[in-house]
C-alpha cells in the first residue's frame, strides 16, 4: 500500500544509489529541514484559519469568508500582509535580544517536531529518550518569552513575560507527571515503543480511570504551557494589551504567532501519541471485521485526525472560558493539579505492578 | 420628615440659616465659614442623618458664585439643598471630602471648571482639563477662541 514510509524509503534508496552514504545523509537532512519549514508554514496557515472559523461558529458569526473559497485563504493573505509590514523596534529596546526572541521561539518549536511519529515508520528522529526530549525542549520557549518581555522596554511586556515564566515552570510539573504515568505503563521513553504498546487498544481505554485523569491533567497543563486561554496570562489581552509581544510587529510578531500554533500542534500530537495511540488505528478487542476496516485508513490520517481533535478541544476551551488570575492559576496548579497527578501516579504505578491494565 | 419639620430641626441645629422659598426641597444658604460644622452636624445627627451627597455643583451668578450641595438621607429619604455664596474673585470654601468621600471628585471638577479653591482638599488638581489651562470654562465670562464653536 502507498504510504508515507514507502515514499521515504524510496527516496533514501534512490539517494544511496546515486551518492555516497555521507552525502546522502546530508541531502536527507536538507530535505527534512525544508519539509519541516514547509510543514510549519502550512500548519500555521491551517491552524489560524481553523481557529478563526471555530471561534466564529461558536460566536454565532460567519468568520472570514472573503479570500478564497469560504475564506480558506484568509490566513495566507494575512501572512502576506504581515510580511509586507514594517517591523518596528521600539526606542530603548535591547535590539539584539528583541530580534533574537522570536527566532528562539521558532527554533524551540521546530526542535520539538523531531521525535514525533507522524505515521507508521515515519519519524524524523526516533530518539530513545523521546518523551524526555520533548519536555526538555518545550521549556526553552519560556526563554524566548522572557527575552521578548525584557527586551521590549515596555512594562506590559515585562509583566506578561514574568507571568509566563511562573506559569510555564509550574505547569511543566503536572504535564511531566501525567506523561510519566504513560511511561510507567510502557516502560520506555521511546515514542515508537509507546505507540507500539497501544496496538491492542489506546492507553486512555486500557488504563482505566487513572489514565483518563492523567489525560485531562495533561490537556489542562499543556493548554497552560502553550499560553492558550484560559491560561493566556502572558498575553492577557484585556489586561496587558498583548503581553510579551505588545511591541512586536510585522514578521517578528508573525513568528511568535506561528510558534504558538506550532506548539499547540506539537503538544496535541504528543497527547495523541501518548494517550490516543498515535498513528495506531482504533481497535476494539475481538471485533476482527471492525479492526480490519479501521486498518484500511492510512496511519497518517489517524495521527492527524487525533491531533486535530485535541487542537479543537483546546480551541473550544479558549472560546468558552474566562481567563484565570495569576494567583488562581498557580493555585490551580499547586493545590489541585499537582496533588491529583501525584496521587494518580501512585495509582498508575500500582496498576502497572499488579498488571491490572488490559 | 416633611419640609416644615425638617426646617424646624435644622433651625434648632443652626439658628443662623437663611431659607429660600421655592423648589420641591428645602433650600438654605449658609456662610462658607460655617459649612464644615453644619455639615458635620447634619451628617452625624441621628434624626437627620444626611449621609448621601448626591450632587455637588456651582453656579456662576456673574456677581458671585454659589456652591450648591444636594444632601439626602438613605435612612429617612429626606433631601435638602444647601447653598453657599462665594466671592467671585477669590472663591474659597472648605472641602467636604472628609465627611462625604464623593466630594473629592466633584470638588476637583468644580475647582477646574469654576476656579473654586477647596481648602484642605487632599488632591486638588485638574481632573478633566489638562494641567496647564487658563480660565474656568463654566464661568459665564469665559471666552475661548479655539475650543468654542460659535454657531
Amino acid at each position: 500500500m502507498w504510504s508515507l514510509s514507502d515514499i521515504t524509503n524510496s527516496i533514501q534508496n534512490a539517494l544511496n544509489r546515486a551518492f555516497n552514504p555521507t552525502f546522502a545523509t546530508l541531502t536527507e537532512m536538507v530535505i527534512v529541514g525544508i519539509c519541516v519549514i514547509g510543514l510549519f508554514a502550512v500548519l500555521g496557515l491551517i491552524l489560524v484559519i481553523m481557529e478563526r472559523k471555530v471561534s466564529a461558529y461558536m460566536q454565532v458569526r460567519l468568520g472570514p469568508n472573503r479570500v478564497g473559497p469560504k475564506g480558506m485563504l484568509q490566513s495566507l493573505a494575512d501572512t502576506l500582509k504581515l510580511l509586507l509590514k514594517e517591523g518596528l523596534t521600539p526606542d530603548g529596546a535591547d535590539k539584539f535580544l528583541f530580534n533574537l526572541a522570536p527566532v528562539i521561539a521558532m527554533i524551540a518549536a521546530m526542535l520539538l517536531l523531531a521525535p514525533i511519529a507522524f505515521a507508521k515508520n515515519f519519524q524524523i528522529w526516533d530518539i530513545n529518550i523521546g518523551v524526555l526530549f520533548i519536555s526538555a525542549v518545550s521549556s526553552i520557549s519560556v526563554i524566548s518569552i522572557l527575552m521578548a518581555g525584557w527586551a521590549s522596554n515596555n512594562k506590559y511586556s515585562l509583566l506578561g513575560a514574568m507571568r509566563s515564566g511562573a506559569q510555564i515552570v509550574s505547569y511543566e510539573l503536572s504535564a511531566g507527571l501525567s506523561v510519566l504515568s504513560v511511561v510507567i505503563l510502557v516502560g520506555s521513553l521511546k515514542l515508537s515503543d509507546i505507540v507500539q504498546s497501544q496496538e491492542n487498544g489506546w492507553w486512555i481505554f486500557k488504563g482505566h480511570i487513572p489514565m483518563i485523569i492523567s489525560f485531562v491533567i495533561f490537556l489542562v497543563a499543556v493548554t497552560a504551557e502553550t499560553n492558550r486561554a484560559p491560561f493566556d496570562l502572558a498575553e492577557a489581552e484585556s489586561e496587558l494589551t498583548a503581553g510579551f509581544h505588545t511591541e512586536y510587529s510585522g514578521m517578528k510578531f508573525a513568528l511568535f504567532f506561528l510558534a504558538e500554533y506550532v506548539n499547540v500542534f506539537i503538544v496535541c500530537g504528543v497527547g495523541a501519541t501518548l494517550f490516543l495511540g498515535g498513528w495506531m488505528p482504533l481497535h476494539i478487542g475481538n471485533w476482527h471485521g471492525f479492526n480490519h476496516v479501521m486498518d484500511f485508513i492510512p496511519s497518517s490520517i489517524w495521527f492527524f485526525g487525533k491531533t486535530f481533535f485535541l487542537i479543537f478541544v483546546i480551541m473550544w476551551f479558549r472560546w468558552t472560558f474566562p481567563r484565570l488570575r495569576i494567583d488562581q492559576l498557580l493555585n490551580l496548579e499547586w493545590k489541585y493539579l499537582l496533588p491529583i497527578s501525584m496521587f494518580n501516579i501512585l495509582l498508575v504505578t500500582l496498576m502497572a505492578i499488579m498488571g491490572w491494565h488490559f | 420628615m416633611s419640609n416644615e419639620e425638617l426646617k424646624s430641626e435644622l433651625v434648632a441645629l443652626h439658628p443662623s440659616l437663611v431659607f429660600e422659598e421655592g423648589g420641591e426641597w428645602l433650600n438654605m444658604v449658609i456662610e462658607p465659614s460655617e459649612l464644615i460644622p453644619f455639615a458635620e452636624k447634619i451628617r452625624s445627627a441621628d434624626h437627620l442623618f444626611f449621609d448621601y451627597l448626591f450632587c455637588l455643583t456651582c453656579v456662576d451668578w456673574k456677581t458671585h458664585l454659589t456652591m450648591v450641595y444636594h444632601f439626602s438621607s438613605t435612612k429617612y429619604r429626606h433631601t435638602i439643598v444647601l447653598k453657599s455664596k462665594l466671592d467671585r474673585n477669590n472663591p474659597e470654601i472648605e472641602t467636604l471630602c472628609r465627611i462625604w468621600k464623593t466630594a473629592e471628585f466633584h470638588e476637583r471638577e468644580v475647582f477646574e471648571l469654576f476656579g473654586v479653591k477647596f481648602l484642605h482638599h487632599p488632591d486638588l488638581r485638574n481632573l478633566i482639563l489638562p494641567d496647564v489651562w487658563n480660565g474656568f470654562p463654566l464661568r459665564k465670562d469665559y471666552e475661548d477662541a479655539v475650543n468654542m464653536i460659535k454657531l
Partner: protein
Amino acid sequence: MIEELATTQEGDLVINVGPQHPSTHGVLHLVITMNGETIKKVEPHLGYIHRSIEKMCESLSFRQFIYVTSRMDYLSSHINNHGCALCVEKGLQIEVPARAQVIRVLMDELTRIASHVLWWGALAMDVGALTPFFHAFREREAINDIMEETCGARLTMNYMAPGGVMFDIHPNFQKRVHAFIELFKSKIDEYDELVTDNVIFKARMQGIGMLSYEDAISYGCSGPTARGSGVKCDIRKLYPYEIYNKLQFEEIIETGCDSYARYLVRMKEMRQSLSIIEQLIDNIPEGEFLAKTKAVLKLPKGEFYSKVETARGEFGVYIVSEGGTTPYRIKFRSPGFSNLSALDHMARGQKIGDLVAMMGSLDLVIPDIDR
C-alpha cells in the same frame, strides 16, 4: 494596610492604563502604581472626551438640550432624555398623557436591558471570555431593531419630547416586543450557563472589589454598583416617576459587596425589566402620545431637579432657570462619575487582572463620566 499601600516607594511600577487600552471601554486613562502585580494606587485622569455639555446646554433651548444628553451615557440615551424631559415638565407643570408615560417606561426598560446586555458581554470580555460578547450583541440587536422601527435610530433615539414622546409607537411594536420577550427569556438562561455559573468567572469576581455599605453611600455610588453593596437606591422605587409606582417589580439588593454581587444585581435586573415590559406591553392605554405645549418653552425662574434611574444609577438633572428660553445653568449628575471615584478605594491591594474585572463590574461609560 491601606495607608501602607498608599505610599509610593522605589521599585514601584507606574503603568498607564489607557487612554487606548482594550478594557477601559473608551478613553479612560488610569495611572496605576503597582508593586509587582499588586495595585497600590489608581488615579483616574479624565477629560479625553469632555465636551462640556453643561456649557453647551446653556445656549440651547429647552427643547433642544434634551437631545444633546443622548451623547452622554450613550447606552441609556433614552433614559437620559427622560430625565431631562421630566425636569422640563416639572418646571412647566405639563401633565404627560397616560399613553406617553407607558411608552416612555417601556422604552426605558428596553434601553436598560440593551445596556445591561452589552455590559454583560463587555464584562465577560474583560475577564477573558470573548464568546459572550457576540452572544450579547445578538440580543442587543433585537432591541436595537425595535428601537429603530419606532424611534428612528438605534443608539441615540431622540424619542423623548417635553410632554410625551415624539411619535406614536410603530404598529409592529407590540408584536416585535412580544417576540423579543420570548427570545430573551431563553437566552438569559444561556447567559447563566455560559458565564454566571462558570467556576473561573466566579473565582474572578467573588471577593474582588469590595465596597462596603458605608463606603458605597459615602462615595455617592448609585445604581447596581450601590445595590450590590446592599444600599437601597432604586429611584424607580424610592422616588417613583411616571407609572413606576403602579408596577409590580422588585428592587434587587445583593449584600455581597463584591464584583459578583454587582454582577448578580444586573443579571436579576434584566429579568425584572423584562417583567415590567411584560406587564405593560399589552396594556398601553389609548390616547394622546404628546401633550400640547407651546412652541417656545420658557421655564419659570427657579431651580428644578429631577432624577431618573439609568442603567448605571441615579441620573440627576439640575436646571437653574432665569425665566428665559435657555437654561441659565444646567448640571448633570452622572452616575458613572461618582461610581468611578470609588475605584481607587476598591482596587487597592488587588491584582491588575482584578482591576479590569472591577471596572467591568462598575459598568463605566466614559462619555457619561466626562460629559
